[in-house]
């Protein structure tokens, strides 16, 4: 049973076609990675799906509902939640207040402490976001997403910029989450991708060039040439 269907999505910036007639479907329970070189159109695609950007063509269905014309807050309320490549939260508010913003919206304020405990960030709760390390900020962003009770979570480069320990923690948390959540991960770190996902969509120059199981993608000649460096 499908949870997300993307039909012929196109996004242009002037003459540049960032996303070119992209279509795919994701089933409930699948964990999917979208990979590709820089400028492939991965983040633009996610921005269009979550309505940070308006599409120039195509439609998006989430959980059976056409969300193409919905504003981002309505898409969020339907349970399609995303994080951002660069941490995009409320730096002058405390970590607790950042999490409470999600809790207040989803009626999960009582779960703030337990989510912080699970993510290992409880000791940072009363610090301002700007005062905590990047790894913790990324976990706060994830915590906010969890408190929003998502049906699907799109993570844009969750381990980018993290040190080895934070990266290890993040992968551990995501491995647990994938058991109960539909995850889409945009990621450059191939170890993380091959550890986490059931399926990989490869993009290049705004198009999907491969779509399949990790073992098949690893052997795909075109992907090797373009993205994996012909290893």
């Amino acid at each position: 049973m499908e949870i997300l269907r993307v039909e012929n999505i196109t996004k242009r910036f002037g003459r540049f076609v960032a996303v070119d007639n992209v279509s795919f479907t994701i089933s409930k329970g699948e964990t999917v990675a979208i990979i590709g070189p820089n400028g492939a159109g991965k983040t633009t695609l996610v921005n269009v799906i979550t309505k940070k950007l308006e599409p120039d063509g195509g439609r998006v269905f989430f959980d059976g509902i056409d969300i193409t014309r919905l504003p981002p807050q309505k898409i969020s309320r339907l349970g399609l939640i995303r994080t951002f490549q660069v941490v995009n939260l409320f730096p002058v508010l405390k970590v607790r207040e950042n999490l409470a913003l999600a809790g207040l919206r989803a009626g999960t304020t009582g779960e703030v402490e337990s989510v912080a405990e699970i993510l290992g960030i409880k000791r940072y709760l009363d610090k301002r976001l700007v005062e905590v390390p990047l790894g913790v900020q990324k976990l706060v962003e994830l915590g906010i997403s969890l408190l929003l009770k998502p049906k699907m979570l799109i993570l844009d480069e969750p381990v980018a910029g993290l040190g080895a320990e934070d990266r290890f923690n993040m992968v551990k948390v995501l491995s647990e989450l994938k058991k109960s959540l539909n995850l889409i991960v945009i990621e450059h770190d191939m170890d993380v991708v091959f550890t986490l996902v059931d399926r990989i969509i490869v993009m290049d120059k705004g198009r999907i060039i491969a779509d399949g199981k990790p073992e098949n993608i690893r052997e795909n000649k075109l992907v090797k040439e373009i993205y994996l460096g012909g290893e």
Partner: protein
Amino acid sequence: MYMLRRLRALIDGNIIALLLLIGLLGLISFTGHRFYMYIATLIMIFGIFAMGYNILFGYAGLLSFGHGLFFGVGAYSVALFTLNVYRDPLVGVLFSIPIALLTSIIVGILTLKHGRVYFAILTLALSMIFWSALVKLRWLTGGSDGLVGIPKRGVHVDLSAPTVFYYFTLVFFAAIMLGLYVLNKSRYGLLLRALGTNEDRLPFLGYSTFTLRMIALTISGVVSALAGALYAVFYSVVTPDVAYWTFGAEPLVMSLIGGSSYFLGPLVGAIIFVSLTTTVARFAEYWMFLLGAALIAMILFFRGGLLGFLESLVGRFKLGVYLRWRF
């Protein structure tokens, strides 16, 4: 136990400072000194105006050049109501609330869907339209002469004695300040601060920024209008000057002087501004020049206003944390 925890969560340095100030303002009436009571009344009125303004400016991050409109709506509501409908200042002041609410919603619908720069310009334009209407609709507003004879003595209350009017203002002041304090501590306070911090992120948490901005504008508009209503009753006269854009920019100056990032910043700014305008302005011919120079210095070197400056001084003792709400 739960109530006790809630109460404890509400108490911080701001409320202690606020209660001390309210107490001090109460004591001033015992001096019986007319001039002190006059200044204190103006401080309360402009303190309400500045604190109301800062809901929009300091919390929601929206710069308004049109708050003279809300102040003017409050002032003219009480004037027109008490002179033409029901001769009572208390009912008149309360009557200004629904009028300000309605005005805020209309202004919000016209302005809030646009970017911050357009919001600033649109509020300025609406304020100037309102000011022009006050000048031109002579049959209703008295034109540039304004409306005179706004009664202090009414059916329900008699505020003609200075001390009585002083207490009347103090009650409104205390109620509004405590209300704003509770708002600051509430979920809406947190949402409004988030709005001012990173407005673009909130829709992805499921919040409508338009709704949050509307809440901020409505609270700000009503509080500013209440300041205008009290001002009109205080002077018993109201002229279109109160709706002029330079008058509407005064709470911005007060917020910057005190520190718009601090809950009590605008109130501190109002105390300084009113004290200066009623004392220094009498002696210094070019006091506006001095005010301008002080503002430039403030913005260039002490962007956190007076409270920010004090915090940087006492920061090493961690005292500032009791005063600030945002940083």
